[in-house]
């Protein structure tokens, strides 16, 4: 005759108990704030200027906090405009590495919040700062859309950041799982662009270096194996 398993009572109580604890833990968690939408449109104007328009939405609405726009040494940011239909009260603060946009406690920004500003660079403009918030998107979502337009007569050269899909060498766009703080685009005048320009960008150089390292490593390995082989 089969003996009853002495642990069956424990298992019978433990399994539903654990499930109840897990369910209670899930219910007790506060709802997370998340970035529901982020659409950035960047238009390059000439060699040194760009105009940025960003519409972003955070859920719940009051979890937005401050918005930060990174600052780079060779650049100046133009006046910030916030909101298209309603204009919320906000203040900007110049911090060492960023410009902070803070909204008055009693005047919540509209949803979605729309920000508009210009960027001027003393040198050729490659790096455009984008606004970021301290709220992350939900996992497995791609709520961040970025579109870029280069001036007529110019073309994109090599890979930039973040990786965009380009049409006609002038219009780039892509969707991402998180909002980047900067957009980096390498461009050239279309008539003076050369076939190897893409290889002279950091992305091209690092790809070439990777191939170089792999080839050198393989050659060293092969030479070592050959010298160890009995003659």
């Amino acid at each position, binding site marked *: 005759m089969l003996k009853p398993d002495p642990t069956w009572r424990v298992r019978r109580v433990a399994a539903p108990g654990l499930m109840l604890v897990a369910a209670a833990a899930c219910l007790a968690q506060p709802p997370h704030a998340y*970035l529901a939408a982020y659409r950035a449109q960047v238009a390059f104007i000439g060699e040194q200027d760009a105009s940025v328009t960003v519409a972003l939405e955070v859920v719940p609405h009051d979890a937005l906090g401050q918005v*930060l726009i*990174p*600052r*780079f*040494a060779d650049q100046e940011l133009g006046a910030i405009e916030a909101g298209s239909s309603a204009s919320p009260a906000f203040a900007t603060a110049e*911090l*060492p*590495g*960023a410009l*902070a946009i803070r909204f008055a406690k009693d005047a919540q920004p509209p949803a979605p919040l729309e920000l508009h500003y210009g960027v001027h660079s003393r040198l050729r403009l490659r*790096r455009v700062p984008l606004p*970021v*918030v*301290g*709220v*992350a*998107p*939900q*996992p*497995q*979502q791609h709520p961040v859309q970025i579109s870029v337009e280069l001036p007529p007569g110019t073309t994109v050269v090599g*890979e930039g*950041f*973040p*990786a965009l*899909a380009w049409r006609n060498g002038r219009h780039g766009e892509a969707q*991402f*799982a*998180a*909002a*980047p*703080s*900067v957009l*980096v685009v390498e461009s050239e005048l279309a008539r003076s662009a050369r076939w190897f320009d893409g290889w002279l960008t*950091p*992305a*091209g150089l*690092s*790809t070439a*270096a*990777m*191939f170089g*390292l*792999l080839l050198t*490593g393989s050659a060293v390995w092969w030479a070592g194996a050959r010298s160890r082989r009995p003659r």
Partner: protein
Amino acid sequence: MSSLSLHFAIVAALYFLVILAIGLFGLRKTRTEEDFLTAGRSIGPWVGGAVLAATQISAGTLVGTVGRHYATGVSWVWVWPGVWCGWLVSAIFVGPKLREFGAVTIPEYLAARFHSETARVLSAIFIVCAYMILLVAQYQACGVLFESIFGFKPIYAMVILTCSTLLYTTLGGVRSSSYIDFLQIMIVVSGLLLSVPVLAHYSGGVRSAGSFLATLDLRIVGSWYNGKQLFGFALSFGLAIAAAPYEMVRFNSMRDKATVRYAIGVCFIFQALIGSCVLLMGLLTRALFPSLPSPDQASSMMAMNVLPPLVGSLFMVALLSAIMSNVNAILLVASSGISHDIYGKAINPRASERVKLAINRASIVVLSFFPVWFALNRYTDVQSIVVLQTRFVASFFFVPMVLGLNTRGGSSRAAVAAMLAGVAGCLAWSIGAAHLSTNIDAVEVGIVSSLLSYLATDAISRRSLRARTANAQA
């Protein structure tokens, strides 16, 4: 399929063809169980050093540590001195002596050193349990990676990982995995070295990124953790590495004592490079993507959106390979515990080499699917799972391993008491004192209880032995 997915698929296919070839080479050279577990003790210092680094540099480092630097900033870097101290202890007090001892597995060493079959079985069972926790971290990281690249459900990623790792683990054992580890560490190091300048360029230089990070949260560039917390983390990693069974199994595959020391030196070079790059990668990725849904996504976001497609794909393949290498090392050490120590010594000591090899391969298959459910539930981030596992390994193994190798005393009861007290102390503190802000880490409690139990039980055993001898003489 996006451009990166296509690049990744091509690079991954080429890479897996290479590892299949190496696996078949390993299969041709493997004849006995000892050959399977120690590669015929033929591995040299450079491959050995790369293998040690590759065994330690896993998803824990390339996903977990990058994620931890991403979330908490610079201060996590102070964990590395703990890791290096662990390697130093291993190089001086553990590795060469263990290699000289000649045991095939850690439970075998403990059984021989303390004349205790209980120590053998206990340590083999603990190895299986503790390393299943680490396997959860690897599977979870793999799920995150595949989700980011292809948008796959994590379960598919885990099944792919398990099947491909099974292939080369069951085929060639330690020999093939050693050569694959060497290849993988080379790709990881070159990928890391190339990614840092690209990241720095995009974020406007390290100084610019630093001031932006300070604006995000001053603790990122200052101290996120206090000294006591960091000491606890560093101690966990250091002590676990000094006595980690899956690292030690690698020593057994090296030619001799001198090779072990040389290999640990080579491993230091790899780790210094990787540690610095991982720190910069975490920080610069935070500057570029300040709010990711999970810190564990920092590596994959960096590879997919920052690096050029070919370099990014190669980096992701290396990352996947690091996970596979770690899964492989864990499976080898856990399955050897089952086949060699539990089945071959405790259950059926007359088992033939062929039967033990078959049990070994079968247990690899069974163990590899076991942690999938836990990984799918994602209880916490990858690095936290790794920290949990290192605490338990250090508390269980450090005292009996290090004292056993470096002192003459120590009875079988002392070894068993040290292992049980260490893990019990660590577990009790982890559960009972989690809510207390004592700043005492569970590993400190585990090690102290293990050491005290070892010394106390040893003293009692000696006393009773002396009394018995005196009685016998009388």
